[in-house]
């Protein structure tokens, strides 16, 4: 399989200036040097607690948020250097699905308008042809063609999410960035939408960057996974390996904290000590060291380097 998306050293800092008369500027290191790559047709998961920067990564890859540093290559092309037409063409090949199905559709536009507009803008189809394609897309995501003339408020959250997926597909993308695509949905609906996404992945050979805080969902959907903590990836590897035997203490804590279907299979839960530090003021050395049960002096001194073990890797001195 060839590499489709290659992200290296991605950085995004947000600065906030507050206070009068002596303004204080704080820098939030939302994304602080993130590298990963996604192969064609592969589902790549990004997991972590809220605030760890995973959604920022998703947006920075598409340049919905302008990254401060690093490179993003899509199918060999430099996304950060692209301007105007080139950028529009690149963006067409990677699309995004949002968490909130209520705000992701314009309340004043019919589903038909929402689906045909991208085709017209990119000159893919127009008029009757665009409408037929829209109907076919709706069918592909399990919605009737009658939905075309209706407005978003007439649909449930799950249906809207399907429509949002159909809209992303209008421009025939090769990569879908799914930002918590099922977190806002009821559990029963979550499964349906996940099945739809997997179905699309197989049928269209779509690659996914799947951002989620729900380890169960990632375990089921993704091939490989990266665990993020305070703006950095702390562990990466295949889903099976990472979740079966996490290398990084944080990944282990995260795994153990997620619900297990069979309560009898759960061992004694390790305690997570302390609060999540703020990304505006991360601890020196390894960001996780104040909460880590295996902390050593070296962890306080410097951020640990990336250590590989076969196909996997982690940023921890224990590896």
């Amino acid at each position, binding site marked *: 399989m060839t590499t489709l998306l290659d992200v290296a050293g991605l950085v995004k800092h947000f600065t906030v200036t507050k206070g009068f008369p002596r303004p204080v500027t704080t820098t939030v290191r939302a994304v602080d040097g993130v590298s990963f790559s996604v192969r064609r047709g592969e589902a790549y998961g990004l997991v972590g607690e809220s605030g760890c920067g995973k959604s920022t990564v998703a947006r920075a890859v598409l340049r919905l948020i302008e990254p401060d540093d690093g490179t993003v290559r899509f199918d060999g092309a430099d996304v950060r250097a692209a301007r105007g037409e080139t950028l529009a063409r690149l963006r067409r090949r990677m699309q995004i699905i949002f968490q909130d199905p209520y*705000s992701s559709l314009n309340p004043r536009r019919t589903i038909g308008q929402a689906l045909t507009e991208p085709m017209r803008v990119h000159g893919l189809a127009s008029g009757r042809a665009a409408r037929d394609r829209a109907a076919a897309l709706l069918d592909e995501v399990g919605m009737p063609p009658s939905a075309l003339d209706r407005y978003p408020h007439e649909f449930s959250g799950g249906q809207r999410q399907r429509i949002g997926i159909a809209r992303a597909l209008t421009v025939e993308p090769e990569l879908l960035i799914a930002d918590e695509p099922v977190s806002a949905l009821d559990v029963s609906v979550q499964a349906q939408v996940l099945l739809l996404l997997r179905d699309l992945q197989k049928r269209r050979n779509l690659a996914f960057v799947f951002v989620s805080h729900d380890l169960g969902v990632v375990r089921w959907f993704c091939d490989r996974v990266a665990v993020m903590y305070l703006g950095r990836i702390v562990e990466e590897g295949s889903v099976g390996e990472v979740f079966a035997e996490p290398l990084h203490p944080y990944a282990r804590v995260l795994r153990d904290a997620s619900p297990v279907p069979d309560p009898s299979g759960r061992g004694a839960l390790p305690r997570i000590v302390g609060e999540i530090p703020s990304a505006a003021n991360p601890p020196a050395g390894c960001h996780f060291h104040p909460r880590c049960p295996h902390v050593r002096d070296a962890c306080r001194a410097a951020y640990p380097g990336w250590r590989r073990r076969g196909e996997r890797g982690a940023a921890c001195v224990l590896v």
Partner: protein
Amino acid sequence: MSTAAVVAVSPVRRAVARFLANPTTGIGIILCILVALSAILAPILSPHDPIEQDVIAQLSPPSATHPLGTDYFGRDVLSRILWGGRISLIVSLTAIAAAIVIGGAIGMVSGYIGGRFDNFVMRVMDVLLSFPSLILGLIVVALLGPDLVNLVVAIGLTAIAPFARIARAPVLALKERAFVEAGRALGYSHARILFVHILPNILSEVLVMGSLWMATAVRTEASLSFIGLGVKPPTPTWGGMMRDGFENILDAPWLPIFPGVAILLLVLALNMVGDGLRDATDPKLRAE
């Protein structure tokens, strides 16, 4: 979040129902239509020429030939009121339309771009806003010279800042919505996102304020004409007629009453409509 999205379209019908259920709004609309019709049909409805002088019938009280009497030059007051409505409506409609377009565009673009640019633009708007609009209008007309176009410029100028504020606030909220991000991801231009996707979502709020500011514009136009800075005589304007009537108040005390009532009726009607519209579209009131 979800409630805001749910109420976005279906409430159009609910808003219309609420709007009609409020009798003041209905009366306001009817009054507005009557005033507009009387101004449009002034050439047909007027019993006399509004600027034709009749020295013999000077300052005559209401009678069969002159239902509302005549002024100092013997001109028919009813005809002048009918024609004067045209000036009021033309000036305030054009001024507010211009203010909506210019102010609305400033507010939308400023809110959409955000950051320091937005800060600066809004500071400028605050400065414009803090100046008493009548004084601002007064000075602008005085410096440019009183005519129809300058009147529109002066009144429009005083309304730009409020519309910039009104248009900006919802844009700040809307640009954070995922459908705007989706649009960018789909390769839409900023202009398309702003004018095709965001604009329809803020239109109702802007138009509601439009009718309230129409009322203010009518009042300002009448005030400027009353001070003597309106469209030049002999063209009839309501404010100018008030001024004429006021000058002859000892000889013909009824003279200022009719144009005064005309101004009051139109301003009141516009306020009633604006008020009703605001109540019908205000999400806060709906939540109660």
